[in-house]
């Protein structure tokens, strides 16, 4: 292996950190755009973990899954942005707390 030799642990740490940041954003942000972005962060955190794992063990599976995650993220953004438009139209705001009509 050439180039930088970063230990797996570090990468996994960064990945977990990213995942935690995304999750925290998901939990505390009310703006739907930020929620979507937090989701992206989480997806990419897991993708990073896959890539790092694939590189560490010299397997191609990690990169295959990364490609899959990338396409899932693209599809998710397409649906998500449609949702954003709907929310904006219906509630005249992007605050997701307004969309609580399904409360018990």
């Amino acid at each position, binding site marked *: 292996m050439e180039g930088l030799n970063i230990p797996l642990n570090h990468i996994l740490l960064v990945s977990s950190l990213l995942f935690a940041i995304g999750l925290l954003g998901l*939990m505390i942000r009310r703006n739907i755009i930020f929620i979507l972005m937090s989701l992206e962060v989480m997806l990419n955190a897991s993708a990073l973990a896959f890539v790092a794992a694939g590189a560490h063990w010299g397997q191609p599976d990690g990169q295959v899954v990364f490609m899959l995650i990338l396409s899932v993220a693209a599809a998710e953004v397409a649906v998500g942005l449609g949702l954003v438009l709907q929310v904006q139209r219906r509630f005249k705001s992007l605050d997701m707390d307004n*969309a*609580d009509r399904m409360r*018990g």
Partner: protein
Amino acid sequence: MRELIGLIAFIPLLSSVTLMLGAERLSRISIGFLGVGSVGVAALLTAAMGIDFLANPQPFQVTLWTWMQVADFAPGVGFYFDGLTLVMMSVITGVGFLIHLFSTEFMEEDISYARYFAYLNMFIAAMLILVMADNLLLLYLGWEGVGVCSYLLVGFWYQNSANGYAARKAFIVTRIGDTAMALGLFLLFTELGTLDIQALGVAANHRWQVGDSMPLLACLLILGGAVGKSAQLPLHTWLPDAMAGPTPVSALIHAATMVTAGVYLIARTHELYLLAPIAMIAVALVGLTTSLMAAFTALTQRDIKRILAYSTISQIGYMFLALGVGAWSAGIFHLMTHAFFKALLFLGSGAIIHCLHHEHDIFKMGGLRSRMPVTFWSFMIGSAALAALPMTSGFFSKDQILLQAYQMPGIGPWLWLGGLVGALLTAIYSFRLVFVVFFGQANTEPDRDTGWRMAVPLTLLCGLALLGGWIIIPVAEVFPVAGDQHPALWVELVSIAVPLIGVAIAYLAFYSRQLRIDGLLKAPVMQKIQSFWFSGWGIDWLYDRLFVKPYYSLARVLKAEPVDALYNFIVRLNQALNHWLSEGQSGQMRRYIASMVFGLIVLLAILVGVL
């Protein structure tokens, strides 16, 4: 002739049904003819039967049809006719007819004219069934029938809720006695296997000895029924309130006929009572205490009808006393004479009330002697008979009772003494009534005098109250012969003298005012005693505390449905849980995520902890 006996009861019943169905279509004249006429026909038929019977005094029994049949229990609708039945039927149809006639004038301005006569005729029918029945079950039918009619007629002016209350009280209090009586009938049927009155007497004598406990129990239960219906202690409280009904109703039901049904019942089942001497003493003591208690109460009343009501209770007490000492025929004799003079007094008071703008308070009357002469003489004769002044009808019957009570071994003289005190009080309160109402100065002017439909019954009843004592009732065959020895002369003389003393006291105190009682009445102790007597010895108050109030509080407790509390608790717990859980479903995505994360952490912690 004998087969016609059924008609006597069914003609008034038919007329009652006609009046109920055709109330709207009949004119007032035809209602009057139907109501009075049906009882008149019944009276004529009774008279014919009576003449037939007196010529050939043979008791007979007619079964019309079988009422019901369950296994070997088959009570029939059958009538038994003997001297006792004849006396009762004559009183019911004869006095009943006069009261019906009186009613046509008394009720002429009432809008419910047809309803009144429908009830009254139904009452006559039920009362006739009661006295003619040959078995106790049919008797019970009549017994309950008169109870219903009494309820309907006491509450006749139902727009006033106080009348409805009085009617319910009359119905419920007598129902307590009726329950005891029903238990007595059940006992007799299970023990003796029949309810036929004649067969019952034979079977009881065959099966039981004098002094056995079973006849004692049966007799006490039947006494319970009689006490309720005849307004004796401790179930007498309904009768004074029953005066809420129209006055002719009080005369017919609450003086002459229905309230004496208890006396009839005990006389009819006398063969059972002869087997239970203790029950007979109980009857005598109930009668004596009631008679004294009611006489004291009557002394202090102001309402003319309440005076007469308490007087009725007191006089029925005398009849019970007679039955209790075994003076059966004297008791029935007093029943008959009492029906005459008390109906007379009640109709007289009805005439006063009718002509005096519905005034009931005797101290607002006064001086009516010259203004209402017919009524005055009715009251004079009625009160004389009630007080048992010599040669009036009440004298003969009450004298018989007192003398036979005296002869009872053991407690006889005490019973006689108690009866004498009652007779003294009776004379005082009845003539207090006469002197206050008819003498002195007039406080209220009558706006009319009695018409002929009131005057004729009053006059005829005057004759009966005066001369009824000479009638010899044909009950010698029915009852065992009482001891014929006469007590000492002084006993008889005292018995005659005491009512005269009572009248003299009333004369001095309420007419000539030589006996100054005002100071005595104003004394604090006397005031207390007076208000105690006025309230009927506080018995209504006592029952109110003992039964009515606790019942109400129990009802209030049960109204909240305490048994359901447990189930309501479960329901409320579930509702709270539901509320609490549905709070969690806020619809806000962030919270869902947070809770999912929380759950994840917990799961992870468990995994880590377990691993």
